């Protein structure tokens, strides 16, 4: 099972993509799960205004075991990019050992070949027949990749936030993303250990992973 209690010092996440992909909802759901169902401090911010309407969309999270002073992201530990444009705009904010996750169906080019990818949109469209669930599929993958995230907490947050009508399909989407990530992306990502100093260089021990379903 994923979801170890870990000591975090400003773990920074950016979820990004195009307007309409549900990036902001994804950010809120993830933040809610981490803030309310884990013992972490979380700040979540997002892009607003014409930027948010026109094309690019992003939601940022800072997750920490300590109270968070500066609420915005500075250097990303995890960047999820669901569009080529998002990769281009934000990849350079990644820490040297940060993790880039892309939608392989939409992103043709990455700045380096160190990235993780799944065809989130295709999974939602072909696997579920619900292209609107792309964000939740990606959320499932993120829940797998973050070793400190408990998938059942994210599911709880999902259930609480969604109306009855679309709850079932979104839980399905979440599980699909989670299991696809587990199957195809390997282990959860390494998280810097704040107690070790120079945390970026430290790699996490791989977690023992059990599929939830």
């Amino acid at each position: 099972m994923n979801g170890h209690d870990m000591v975090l010092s400003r773990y920074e996440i950016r979820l990004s993509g195009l307007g309409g992909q549900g990036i902001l909802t994804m950010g809120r759901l993830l933040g809610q799960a981490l803030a309310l169902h884990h013992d972490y401090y979380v700040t979540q911010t997002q892009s607003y205004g014409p930027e948010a309407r026109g094309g690019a969309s992003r939601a940022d999270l800072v997750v920490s075991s300590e109270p968070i002073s500066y609420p915005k992201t500075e250097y990303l530990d995890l960047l999820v990019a669901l569009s080529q444009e998002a990769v281009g705009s934000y990849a350079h904010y990644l820490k040297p050992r940060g993790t880039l996750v892309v939608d392989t169906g939409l992103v043709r080019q990455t700045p380096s070949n160190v990235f993780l990818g799944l065809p989130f949109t295709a999974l939602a469209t072909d696997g579920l027949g619900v292209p609107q669930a792309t964000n939740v599929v990606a959320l499932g993958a993120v829940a797998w990749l973050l070793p400190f995230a408990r998938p059942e907490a994210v599911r709880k947050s999902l259930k609480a936030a969604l109306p009855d009508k679309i709850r079932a399909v979104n839980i399905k989407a979440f599980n699909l993303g989670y299991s696809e990530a587990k199957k195809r992306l390997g282990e959860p990502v390494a998280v810097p250990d704040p107690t070790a100093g120079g945390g970026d260089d430290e790699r996490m021990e791989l977690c023992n992973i059990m599929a939830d379903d």
Partner: protein
Amino acid sequence: MSQVRKKRREAFLLGNEAVVEGALAAGCTFYAGYPITPSTEIMETMARRLPQLPDGVFLQMEDEIASMGAVIGASLAGRKAMTATSGPGFSLMQEQIGYAAMTETPLVLVDVMRGGASTGLPTSPGQGDVQQARWGSHGDHPILVLSAADVPECLEMTVTAFNFAEKYRTPVVLLLDEITAHTREKVSLPEPGDFEVFSRPVPTMPPEWYKPYEETLRGVPPMPPLGTGYRFHVTGLSHDLLGFPTSRPEEVAALVERQFRKIDRFFHDVQLVEHVMTEDAEALVIAYGCVARSARLAVRQAREAGVRAGLLVLKTLFPFPRSHVEKLLRSCRLAVVPELNVGQISREVKRVNEGYAAVRTINRVDGQIIAPAQILKEIA
């Protein structure tokens, strides 16, 4: 603030949403407003919440002037009432702020500051409304201006704003910024009894003996809701003890003096600050709002680097907490005032400094937040 911390209902809220929770906890039952970015979520949340209360009233008015008018009317009728806006709307509200100050009508106005003058940067943070909050309405009048730096504080300071408004019969402006308003964080939802909640004093004498603007021990006259038998006159004109217009110099002066005195006497109550490692600080940062969060990190980083840095967070901006600032300026060599404007609170800091410390400013007006590194550079 007497907040009891125990295991309780929690929510992952925007700063704007936390304002609503604070307002409702303080007994607010009336909201009138006009949508404007980045304050709109306050209004939208109020629109959902207030009609659920047995006596809650939510109104979307035709503009910000009307919003303030409705809030004033509701307050006169005995309600705890508020509105929220941002820069351009705040400018429109100034006329009515003066009216509320002159008529001593309690109300809370949340201004979520965005970048730039005029329409400026609607979705970017700024702190350019600070001096306007103090002096935006014409003529000399007292006013309280508060700020909040994070989401739980949005809730707490909204309660404080209502308490001050009621206690001192004055308009209270709560200044937030786009960052604070649009950040989501975990908030403990208030339960009844968590906060001490004040309500305005009401007259306890027979109506014929009631003088609506008479001096009292605290300088704050009691205020009956309209329609309860105390038929008095409310006017924005300079008025006498009975509330009727007067231009007699001694009556006019007495009114203005009492209006200032009712707050000046209680500086110790209204001037709220937070000290972060200031006891031995050589390098002091004075900040408020979202910039205070950056400063907090910078100060910690400076301490780690061996610099004796400290932070004074201003929660009350006006009346400017002079005694707190002055005391620290005497003991530090450097004071850095980072703000998202060209220098509005630094102006106050310099005013009270009197040569004790070197005052440096960090000013940013490009719609971007001041990052911790920028502050660290100045103090380390």
